[in-house]
């Protein structure tokens, strides 16, 4: 029977320190890039040059380097806000995977405001109104699910997932229905096509020399700080942590769990809606692919960061660099396209999960153990 001993033995480690965990994550990303390098080599692409281009995002040697940064920010901000908002819901163990739908609703209602009022309101007011409409649209779309869950205990994962498609087809309806009342469409075009927003509905930018700083970045950074404080220092944040940890304990402590769930999910979904409004306003036009999949990628980011606010900033930066870098690098390599970023993203997630396992457990070869004795 001795021969049936397994080769390795899984042994629990002590809680790893933050330094060790960070090292494990960095190692995981490096390993994922190595796996990517192998894939690149198979396609005949020199990985080092590719990665250099990816990381520099084609900024050096560009004729308009600032334009690259501006575009980068346009990708970064929606992902950052969405990930933060999703983490807020996940902290409460509310599995909101409806980021896509809430984002679309935010963008749609912001677009609605833009098309209706864009000509009459001054620009700062117009952007504010769009932001509010987006937040309200997204928030109500999310709070609907929370209310059902609180009232009847429905499964939020299923509902938020299904509502993503409802939102997408809702938007598609307006994109493809050419009639007189559909003010979303460009009247000049024969084919159905979303009209550009009036100039006053375009996102405000602050000029610093040749660079136009998108206002949404400043707001997003502000939101990071606010949410960090909200989650870690306020009573509301404390309630979220308790409800997420143990709803029974929360009730026992006299908390109104239903109210906390509804409030938090409204906030989460409203932030995603806000991200949608910013996206629409920055792009200056609606589109059925307006989400750029942030509702999904945001889930990945939130988990990579373990719902930690600082981690979310880092992880969404990393993912945006990957996506934007791949996009720019792929212009020089015909065999690679932007999907490579998705592939790398998946590999990173898997390896980080594995790294997580190794920060908590270690494998010990059977033989060595006996020797230790």
């Amino acid at each position, binding site marked *: 029977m001795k021969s049936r001993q397994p080769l390795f033995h899984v042994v629990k480690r002590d809680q790893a320190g933050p330094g060790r965990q960070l090292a494990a994550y960095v190692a995981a990303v490096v390993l994922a890039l190595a796996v990517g390098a192998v894939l690149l080599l198979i396609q005949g692409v020199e990985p080092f040059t590719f990665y250099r281009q990816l990381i520099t995002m084609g900024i050096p040697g560009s004729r308009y380097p600032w334009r690259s940064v501006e575009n980068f920010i346009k990708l970064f901000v929606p992902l950052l806000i969405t990930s933060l908002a999703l983490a807020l819901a996940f902290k409460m163990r509310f599995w909101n995977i409806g980021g896509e739908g809430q984002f679309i609703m935010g963008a749609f209602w912001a677009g609605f405001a833009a098309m209706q009022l864009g000509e009459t309101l001054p620009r700062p007011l117009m952007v504010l109104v769009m932001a509010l409409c987006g937040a309200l649209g997204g928030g109500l779309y999310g709070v609907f699910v929370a209310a059902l869950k609180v009232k009847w205990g429905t499964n939020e994962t299923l509902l938020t997932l299904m509502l993503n498609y409802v939102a997408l087809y809702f938007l598609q309806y307006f994109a493809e229905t050419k009639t007189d009342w559909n003010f979303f469409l460009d009247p000049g075009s024969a084919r159905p096509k979303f009209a550009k927003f009036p100039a006053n509905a375009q996102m405000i930018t602050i000029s610093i020399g040749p660079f136009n700083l998108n206002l949404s970045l400043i707001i997003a950074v502000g939101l990071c700080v606010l949410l960090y404080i909200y989650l870690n220092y306020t*009573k509301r944040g404390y309630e979220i942590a308790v409800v997420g940890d143990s709803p029974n304990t929360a009730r*026992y402590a006299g908390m109104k769990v239903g109210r906390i769930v509804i409030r938090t999910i409204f906030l989460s979904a409203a932030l995603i809606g806000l991200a949608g409004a910013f996206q629409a306003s920055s792009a200056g036009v609606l589109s059925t692919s307006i989400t750029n999949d942030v509702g999904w990628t945001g889930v990945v980011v939130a988990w990579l960061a373990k719902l930690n606010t600082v981690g979310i900033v880092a992880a969404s930066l990393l993912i945006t660099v990957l996506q934007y870098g791949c996009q720019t690098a792929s212009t020089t390599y015909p065999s690679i396209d932007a999907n490579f970023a998705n592939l790398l993203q998946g590999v990173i997630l898997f390896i980080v999960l594995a790294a997580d396992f190794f920060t908590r457990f270690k494998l010990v070869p059977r033989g060595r153990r006996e020797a230790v004795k």
Partner: protein
Amino acid sequence: MEQQYAIEMRGICKSFGSVAANKNVNLNVRPGEILALLGENGSGKTTLMNMLSGIYKPDSGAILLDGREVAINSPEDAKRLGIGMVHQHFKLVDVFTAADNIWLGDEKSGQVLKKERYGVIGDMARKFGFDIDPRKKVYNMSVSEKQTLEIVKVLYYGAKIIILDEPTAVLTVQETAKLFDVLRRMRAEGHAIIIITHKLNEVMEISDRVAILRKGEYITTVDTPSTNGQQLTEFMVGRKVELNIDRPVVDKTRPLLEIRELTIRNDEGAVAIDKVNFYIRGGEILGVAGIAGCGQKELCEAIAGLRPIESGMMIHKGDNIVGLPPKAILEKGISMSFIPEDRLGMGLAPSMSVTDNMLLKKYDQVRGPFVDRRTGRAEAKQVISELEIVTPSTETPVRRLSGGNVQKVLLGREIKAGPNVIVTAYPVRGLDINSSYAIYDILNRQKKDGVGILFVGEDLDVMIDLCDKIMVLCHGRIMGVVHAHKTSKEELGLMMTGALDLSNKYEDKPAGIAKDSRIGEGEEEEA
């Protein structure tokens, strides 16, 4: 050469991370012998037995079966080698019949459920002298029937070595006596039996030898007839311990909390508490005894405002508290601490720090939008030092503390809030002797301060020593309230199973209604 050991463990070590659960443990049992494995909680008894039953593997050391070294890599290996374990939490499929539960794990039985399985298993159970109905579904069984089924299952698989993990924890006195008869019979048939327990009187009653573990270390094995409770405790704890529980006599106040004709339903909608009357005075500990599921949990939840009340009254200091939200009841000074089986389910947020858990009921009392962690930290420090809680820091998540310390955090917070009624359920559940006595001490100190305490307990010996009065529940009905110093375990045991009803012993007044009741005060006087 002396008689061959049925099983022998030599130099067993096992650690989880940096925590050594077992250090160099030696253990042996002969066929036809009952070995008691004694130790405080966290001393590594269950870990050691799990290595015999194939759930864990030792890091080092050897296991010898009939003198031959064996490797037990899985529960299947253990089964093949004739080692069977009856776990503390039964491993049964609720919706299956008794026979099917046994059939399920039998390798010889093949892929289909044969008709004759009821006969085969029924015969076999009768052969061993058990009285079980093979067609009965597990969810219809009482706790002791389930345990019998577990034992039959183990025997059916041909176990020669039987391990029982705290088998008496869930049994009444009478059921325990029955179990011990079964064990003696199995011993006579030549089985080797290991029984894990921390109840000294049971060790003395049933075992031939006792092995003692302390903090994962093997201390010694002694012959039961040559030892006594005092000595065993010293082995177990490592120093002299006073085994008496104080029952200070305190001046009692008028009733603080009165329960009148209370009816509550459980989660399934069945009546959990049925027209119950009782009252608690300040300076008194009222024990609540009853077998698992007799309605204690629902009663505690109802008093804390967590469970809706079907009918009846709950009067606190003359005010009706029925229908008040948990927060309002809390503010009246009624504290509830319920230690569920998993210890962390209600009352604590396991992933949050000790500090945060201190703030659980009062985070909302400070002004402004922020949580006042400074006060929380100060309180956490105070409770940690007063109750001698072992924790790396105030910021350690509660779930990383050991069971005893978790319970101290919970009780410490409740007492810190200065309640006038404490409802506490199983406060010493799973605690070692030291921690248990620390908790009795805390409760007695509260009692001296004039607090009324409702103590839902498991260990009748302790309740008889600690409580002033004991109320016995059976299927949601009160079987009577007895004075703790006048009653006996046997009497309580009979009441718990419903065989003895003392609720109308005194005919001059209805049971459970105080003479100086505050109900109806100022309106009509009670007749």
